[in-house]
């Protein structure tokens, strides 16, 4: 018996491959940013697998957004600490 559905890892690899031409047409700096986005989606593969969503790419997009938001929250916190230090 084989798998009835591809795993989240395989789907992400397929999605990444389907954007290969898009990536190729980007500037080098943008290519690195795109690679970072896919890396952040890869960090949540276990959750994506568990979610068993009908449209896995939506989960990957949300994973990317999650990492981006975490980064924003970290930066906001650092900014507040810097401002507090400057005022105090």
């Amino acid at each position, binding site marked *: 018996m084989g798998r*009835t*559905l591809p795993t989240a890892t395989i789907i992400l690899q397929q999605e990444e491959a389907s954007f290969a031409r898009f990536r190729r047409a980007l500037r080098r700096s943008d290519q690195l940013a795109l690679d970072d986005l896919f890396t952040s989606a890869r960090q949540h593969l276990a959750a994506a697998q568990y979610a068993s969503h*009908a*449209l*896995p790419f939506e989960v990957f997009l949300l994973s990317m957004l999650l990492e981006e938001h975490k980064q924003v929250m970290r930066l906001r916190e650092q900014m507040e600490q810097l401002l507090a230090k400057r005022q105090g």
Partner: protein
Amino acid sequence: MITSIEPKFGSWNADILKAAFRTDGRAEAPLSVKPPGWILLVGPRQVNAAMLTAIARLGEGHAIRVLDGGNRFNAYVVARLVRGRPEVLERITVSRAFTCYQVLALLESTPAAALACVVLDLLNTFYDESVQAGERKRLLRACLAQLERIGQSSRSVVSVHPPKVPSQAAVEMLAMLQAEAQDTIFIQTEPAAPEPLRLF
């Protein structure tokens, strides 16, 4: 991409299915296959993509039962085709079998309800040579009886792909299916066009 469907016997069914199995085909077409009986589609494995498209389009309007004999049903592809709409996905019921014995059990347990019924890659497990040819044919005969029962009330389509390694038993089993089918449609796909040269 399917480019032509050449029916062995010209009939109204062939024209209907021709429209249905175009990737941009309308949803209604295969449901016009009227019981009793079932339609046999014979074609290469690439046809499966068009089958999944047809299943997705059918699911938009009607309840549909998919019996998967060769692990051909990719739910992610169908979900993407219907844009993840749960009301459409809920109308599609999938059952899978991984051995020829399971295919028979699956068909036996399928009620003869007035739903559209699609059997994907029926012969896949029957190509397994670890089961004796006589036994496989006996099971296929029993499957044909079940298909006839299901076809009494359901609008049914059965797809078959040729085996990777041609064998006499496979040819005989295909002939058995053709003999029982209401109509047989051979689907040809055009060879893939060469990749265009890249400028950079």
